[in-house]
């Protein structure tokens, strides 16, 4: 066999040689397979992915929880109602007064330790109220646990959809800039540079505030100020340069490689080279960026919503819930703690998984998200 290979060198020789070997010994392994094998060994990263999916599923099941466990909706107010806790009847929102800052109990003598509160919602009941008000109520008697799940839906929607839009646009811009170079590249990189001249949160707030007043009215696109697509679009645009710039760098170096030259020599059109030749080669970075950008966008959404330039009330989102909770933090810290913990868990799980994914896809890669 080997002698034949030396004497008659044909294009088939390599595959003929391979076919003579036992198939169990040599097996083609794609980079994706190798990456998966590395990722599989990274228990921390996989565990984080599970945590993230658990959060997503919990939030998707929000209507089920609301209907069958809490028996209320995310915006239903129960200010004047009474609930039964361990056989005792208690008011959902008690009238306010002077409250001791430390203990949260009514003040006997007013002093510097006391603060005036307009209404005191019921605290976390865990499961002693038959599934109602598990995490307590907010100032206008809404069930915090239900809002936490619905808020998660909003925050995850904004985070994931905006990352998808952001990554898609960044890919297209990076491919155009990197492939065509010259004046196209100049225009696109200047566009990126311009966005870098604004602090991210400030730019988001500027757009958010400008659009929240009267909404977006552009021909067929008519969005009201409270529409959830407004923060989603803002967040996706604000971060395009942060993904686009590093991707452009990669495209630029790939463009000089031989396989692109070969493709050009074969007469491939630009779009084919961009999307069939170049895109698969930056796919691993794109995947890592996508994961990390979701984490980043969830934080950004909560920041904008907290300041009032993101998701508009009464729609629940983790950011608006923290803003609501801040007013009552002295008496009912859980109102602000719960959504914050939800954000930290979600974002941390995505960051850890993104890190593991990067290590698995390319152990030497330097894909970093600069905020």
């Amino acid at each position, binding site marked *: 066999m080997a002698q034949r290979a030396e004497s008659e060198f044909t294009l088939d020789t390599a595959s003929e040689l391979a076919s003579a070997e036992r198939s169990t010994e040599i097996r083609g392994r794609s980079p994706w397979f190798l990456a998966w094998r590395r990722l599989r060994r990274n228990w921390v990263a996989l565990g984080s992915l599970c945590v993230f999916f658990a959060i997503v599923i919990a939030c998707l099941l929000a209507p089920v929880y609301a209907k069958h466990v809490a028996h209320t909706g995310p915006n239903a107010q129960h200010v004047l109602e009474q609930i039964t806790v361990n056989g005792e009847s208690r008011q959902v929102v008690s009238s306010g007064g002077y409250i001791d800052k430390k203990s949260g109990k009514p003040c006997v003598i007013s002093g510097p330790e006391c603060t005036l509160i307009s209404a005191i919602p019921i605290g976390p009941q865990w499961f002693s109220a038959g599934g109602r008000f598990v995490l307590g109520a907010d100032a206008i008697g809404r069930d915090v646990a239900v809002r936490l799940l619905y808020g998660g839906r909003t925050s995850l929607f904004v985070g994931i959809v905006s990352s998808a839009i952001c990554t898609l646009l960044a890919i297209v811009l990076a491919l155009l800039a990197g492939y065509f170079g010259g004046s196209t590249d100049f225009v696109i990189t200047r566009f990126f540079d311009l966005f*870098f001249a604004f602090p991210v949160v400030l730019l988001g707030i*500027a757009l958010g505030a400008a659009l929240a007043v009267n909404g977006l009215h552009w021909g067929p696109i008519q969005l009201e100020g409270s529409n959830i697509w407004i923060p989603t679009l803002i967040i996706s645009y604000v971060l395009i340069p942060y993904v686009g710039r590093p991707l452009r760098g990669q495209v630029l170096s790939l463009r000089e490689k031989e396989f692109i030259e070969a493709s050009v020599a074969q007469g491939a059109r630009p779009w084919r080279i961009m999307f069939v030749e170049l895109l698969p080669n930056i796919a691993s970075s794109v995947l890592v960026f996508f994961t990390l950008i979701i984490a980043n966008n969830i934080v950004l959404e909560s920041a904008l919503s907290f300041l009032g330039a993101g998701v508009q009330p009464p729609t629940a989102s983790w950011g608006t819930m923290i803003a609501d909770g801040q007013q009552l933090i002295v008496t009912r810290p859980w109102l602000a703690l719960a959504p914050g913990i939800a954000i930290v868990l979600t974002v941390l799980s995505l960051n850890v998984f993104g890190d593991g994914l990067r290590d698995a896809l390319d152990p030497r890669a330097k894909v970093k998200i600069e905020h």
Partner: protein
Amino acid sequence: MLSFLVRRLIGAVLVCIAVTFIVFVIFIVIPGGDPAERIGGKLATPQNIINIRHDWGFDRPFYVQYGVMMQKMLSGDLVSYTKGQNVADQIIQGIPATFSLTIGASIIWLFFGVLVGVISAVKAGKLSDRVITVLALVGISMPVFWLGIVARYYLAEGGLVTWFPDGGYVAFLTNPFSWFYHLMLPWVVLAVLYIGFYGRVLRGNVLDTVNEDYVRTAKAKGLAPNRIMVKHVLRTSLIPIVTLFGLDFAAVLGGGAILTETVFDLHGVGQYAAQSINDFDLPPIMGVTLYGAFFIVIFSVIVDLLYAYLDPRIRPT
């Protein structure tokens, strides 16, 4: 070097002009509809809106509108219609608090960021590295305003203790001790995110640099490990940190610490913008956005110059 400086400054001026145009596009063009209604705020009467429309030139072509806006912004005539205050005055009033917050926090985050990065790189793979990496990731994953609210509640409002004052800002000249005391918590809260971030970046850089040939040469010469780390490895690894630091510093100086300022009630430039959001009062936000962008542009020039000084390889000819 001089020609580089001149070119860089011309570029910066062009960017500033482009930035003003973006501000115009964001507030006047993108939202569509009637800009006068937006600028006027929620409480504007129909007559106010008509006046604003005329005053800002919204009944004239867009280049006139841009010109009017620029004239208002640069001459300090920008007025918040909701509150009836001059925007430039309010921004100037907020500057001491914002600068105090930025300078203190940046010292903390630079020092601890470098410390964290070096320790975790030296101990790479060991338990201490893992613990630091996890802590850094937690730091990065926490929304800064939430950390601020929680820290303020537990450490200042009596959730656990009352070691710190409950928000507010005291001018340095009024009482330096009180100034320091009021800013301690905001400094640390703002720094946490950056410490985690810088630590991770520096760790990666150090681990890359350690494998360079010249580091091996230094080892072969028999230099002490500490000396190699400080003189050979860190000097190179810190260069990207300079860029990051310059731009982050500028962003925070330019009102980017809007969340920390709001949570701790520091009355800085960022908080001024944040307060205006609730009233849908746009002129202050326009002013602060432009102010922030200018800072970043100026600092990116400074960073480029520093960069050229620190790294001869990229020194422009």
